C-alpha cells in the first residue's frame, strides 16, 4: 500500500489541453488534494466523462474508467456499491453532467451516493469545437447558435440543492489554493458532493475569460458564511453580479446510500464474493 504522490500519479502521457486551459488548474488542485489526503493509490477510482476534461484520463495514473459522454455518474455508483471502501470521483464537463447526463446527477444527489462529482464548467462545448452548453449565457453566439442562444443558463447549484445534495460547492480554476481545499472537503464529505468548477476556455469562450472571472469571483469564506443554512445557500447560489465561490451548502447529518443497505454493514460486496452459493432459501418458494 502506497499513498499517491505527485510523481506516482503522473502518467507517461503528456497533456493535450490548449495553453491557458482551466483544466491545468483543476488537475493540479486535484493532485495536491489527493496527496494531502494521503489516499493509497489503489483505493482511488476516477470515472471520466467524455470531453476536454475527460481527456485527463490519460494524464493520471490511477484506477480509471474513461466512460461515455454523460454516463460517468452511473458507472461511479456501480463502483461505489460494489466496493464502498473506494474513494470514487467523477470528472466530467458541464455538457456531460448538466446536459447529456442530467438525470443521473439528480438521481445521485437524491440517493446521496457517496461519490464526488467534479464538474469542469467552461460554459461551452470545447472538444466539439465551440457550441453552446447548458451553462452558456443567454444570447451568446456560438457555432450551434449563430443568432444567439435562446435558452437561459442552468444553475447547477440551486438544482443540486433542490435535489437534496448534501454538499454543494463552487470553485474557480484560477484559484488553486481554494480549489485544493474544496476538492479535499468534497472527497471527505460522507455522501454525495457536487463541486462545480468555473474555468475559462481560452480557445472557444471569448466571453468568460480569466479577466472576466477575476473581476467577479469572491470567496464565501471571507464573508463569515454559514454553509449549514439551506435557505442562505439557495439565495447565495443565485447571485449573478458577483460570483461567490466556496462551499454553499453542507449537511453532515445525511446518511450515504450504501449505509442504508444492511447487506453492506460489515463487508463490501466484493469482499463477500463467494465460491459457493446455497439456493436452499429461495427454492422453498417453488416446491
Amino acid at each position, binding site marked *: 500500500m502506497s499513498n499517491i504522490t505527485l510523481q506516482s500519479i503522473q502518467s507517461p502521457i503528456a497533456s493535450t489541453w490548449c495553453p491557458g486551459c482551466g483544466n491545468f488548474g483543476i488537475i493540479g488542485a486535484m493532485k495536491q488534494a489527493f496527496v494531502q489526503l494521503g489516499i493509497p493509490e489503489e483505493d482511488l477510482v476516477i470515472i471520466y466523462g467524455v470531453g476536454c476534461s475527460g481527456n485527463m484520463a490519460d494524464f493520471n495514473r490511477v484506477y480509471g474508467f474513461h466512460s461515455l459522454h454523460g454516463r460517468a455518474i452511473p458507472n461511479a455508483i456501480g463502483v461505489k456499491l460494489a466496493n464502498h471502501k473506494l474513494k470514487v470521483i467523477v470528472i466530467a464537463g458541464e455538457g456531460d453532467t448538466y446536459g447529456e447526463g442530467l438525470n443521473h446527477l439528480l438521481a445521485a444527489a437524491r440517493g446521496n451516493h457517496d461519490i464526488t462529482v467534479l464538474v469542469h464548467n467552461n460554459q461551452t462545448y470545447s472538444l466539439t469545437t465551440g457550441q453552446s452548453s447548458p451553462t452558456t449565457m443567454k444570447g451568446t453566439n456560438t457555432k450551434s447558435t449563430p443568432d444567439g442562444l435562446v435558452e437561459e443558463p442552468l444553475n447547477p447549484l440551486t438544482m443540486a440543492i433542490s435535489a437534496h445534495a448534501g454538499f454543494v460547492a463552487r470553485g474557480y480554476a484560477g484559484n488553486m489554493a481554494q480549489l485544493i481545499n474544496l476538492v479535499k472537503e468534497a472527497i471527505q464529505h460522507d455522501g454525495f458532493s457536487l463541486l462545480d468548477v468555473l474555468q475559462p476556455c481560452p480557445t472557444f469562450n471569448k466571453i468568460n475569460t480569466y479577466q472576466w472571472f477575476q473581476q467577479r469571483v469572491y470567496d464565501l469564506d471571507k464573508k463569515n458564511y454559514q454553509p449549514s443554512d439551506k435557505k442562505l445557500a439557495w439565495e447565495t447560489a443565485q447571485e449573478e453580479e458577483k460570483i461567490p465561490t466556496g462551499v454553499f451548502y453542507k449537511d453532515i447529518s445525511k446518511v450515504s446510500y450504501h449505509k442504508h443497505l444492511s447487506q453492506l454493514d460489515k463487508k463490501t460486496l466484493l469482499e463477500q*464474493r463467494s465460491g459457493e452459493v446455497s439456493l436452499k432459501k429461495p427454492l422453498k418458494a417453488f416446491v
Partner: protein
Amino acid sequence: MSDMTEAKNWNWKIAGQAGEGVMVASKMVAKLAKRHGLSAFNYLEYPSLIKGGHQTGQVCFSKEPIFSQIRSLDILIAFGQASFTEHAEEITEKTLVIYNSNAGELNEDLVKQCKGKIINLPLNEFARKTAKTKLATNMVAFGITVAAFGFDQQAALSMVEEEFSSKGEEIVKKNHLAFTAGFEAFLEQESPISSFSVDSKDNQVLMTGNEAVGLGAVAGGLQYYSAYPMTPASAAMHFLADQQKNYPLVVKHVEDEIAAINQALGASYAGVRSMTGTAGGGFALMVEGLSLSGVTELPVVILYGQRPGPATGLPTWTSQADLQFVLRAGHGEFQRIVLSPGTIEEHYLFTKQAFDLAEKYQVPVFIISDKYALESHQTFTKPEETAEVGKLSFVEEKDLKSDNSFRRYSLTNTKDGVSLRSVPGQEHGLYISNSYEHDAFGYATEDATLTIKQTDKRASKYNGILEEIPKPILLGKKDADVTFICWGSTVNVLKDVVSQTDKANVIHLPCVWPFPVKEFTELAKKAKSLVMVEGNATGQAEQLIRQETGITMNDNLRRYDGRPFYAEDIIDWLEQ
C-alpha cells in the same frame, strides 16, 4: 371416473377482470398439480392495465411432461360473460363451464352457442358470505377446481395457508372458508372429472421464466442488479430485490435504462458479477452501454424480454421480433453471446452459465427470452441446492509486480483473446478501463496498428466461446418427414408437438450467437424438409441461418399477433 383419469392431459382456465385474483388462483392450481406429481404449465394473458379488462390464467397438466398451453378446455371458470365470447372456440362438448351467476344472467344466445355444459354458481356471493369480501372469489374458484379435478383437499388447504399466511391468521381463515364453499358447491352439483393423490416424492419445482432467470443469476454469483421496470422483465427485478435478504446482493431500481447498464458496468469494473434486465424499448436506451461493455471488455449479463413492438407495441404480449436487434445492437464491432433458452429449466441453467461465460470471456452475454416464457410457470426437476461460482479471468495478486508493469489489455499474454484484469483495491493493478481504443495499459490510442491489434484480440474470443455455448438439440425421432427449427421459447410448443406425432422432429437453438454453424449444419442436412417456426413477421432467425450456413428453409410458420404458437395448430398444419 377411472376411464377419464386415463386422459393424457387436463386443461383448465380461469377468466376475469384484472384485480380479481385470476393470476394467483392460476399459479396455485399449477402448483397443486405439481404436488400431485404432475407436470404443469401455466399461461397468463392480460392487458396493460391494473383494474378491469379481460385476463386469463390457464393451466395444463399431465402425467407426462408438458411444456405449453392447450386450446380445448376441460374446465373454464368464468367470472363474467366476456369469457364466453373471448374463449368460445376453446369450449368443446367435454368442457364444464362454471359461470359466476352474480355477474348477471347469461345472454340466451351465448348459452345456445356454448358447446359445453354450463354450471351456474354465485361465486361472488360465496366469497362475500364466507370471507366477507368479493376479493376471495378466486379462492371460491380454487375450491371448485380442486373438487372438479379430484385433487387432495388437505393439500389444497395447505396451499391456501401458504399463500395468505403473511397476511395473518384471520385472512387465512377467511380464504379457507371461501375455498370450502366453492369445493362443496361443486360437489353438490357435479362429480369430479378425475382423481389424483398427492405425490410424496414430488421433486419438482414450479416457477416462471423470470424467477428461473433470477434463481440462475443467484446461482451464477450475481451481486449487482440494476434495472428499470419494464414488462415482461420487471418480475426478475422483483424476485431479485426480495433475495437481497438472503445474499450479498444489491438490487438497484435506477432512474433509466441508461443508468441500469452503466451501473452494472461500474460494478463489474469493481469486480462483482452484475446484470441488468429489460425489454425492447429499454434496451434501445442501453445500446451505447452495450458498446462500452464491448470495448472495455467488462462482463455484464443482460436479460432481454421480448414483447411486440415497434415502440410501445403490445406491452403485455409475446414476440420473437428482436433477434436481429440484439445481434446487431451497438456501434462498432465487438463480441457478444446470445443465449436463447426455451424451457423454464433452460432459463435457470443458461442464466447461471451466462455469468461464467461473461466473466471468462469479458463480454456482454444476453439471455434473450419473451413474455411467453418469462411470465409462464412450468414444472421441472428441482435444481441442486448448492452452486459453485468460479473466479475467472482475474489476475492474481502475486502476478501484479511492484514495477507496475501490469498490462490489463495485454496483446501477448492472452488465451482466446482474453487478457486478465485487475480490480480497484489491488496494489500495482492500476489501469484505465477505456471507452476509447486503447493500448495495453488502457491509455487511449489512435495508432492504426494498435487499433487493428486490439480489435483482433477482442475478435479472437469467438473460437473459445464457440466451444462452450449450448449446442443445437434434436428433439423427437431421428427420422421424420418434417424438421421444425426453432429458437427460444417456441421449443416448448414444439416439444408438445413431437410428443404427439412421429411426422415431425425439432431442432432447437439454445444459443443463437455465436452461431453454432458446424453442429447446426450436421443436424439440418439430415432433414427431409426444414420448416422454421418463429414469432416474428420477417423470419429473423431464418435470415440468420441462411447468412451463417447458406441453408434455406422449405417452409415457415410465423406468428406475430402477440400470441404464442399452439401445438394443436402446428399438428393441424402437419396433417394438411
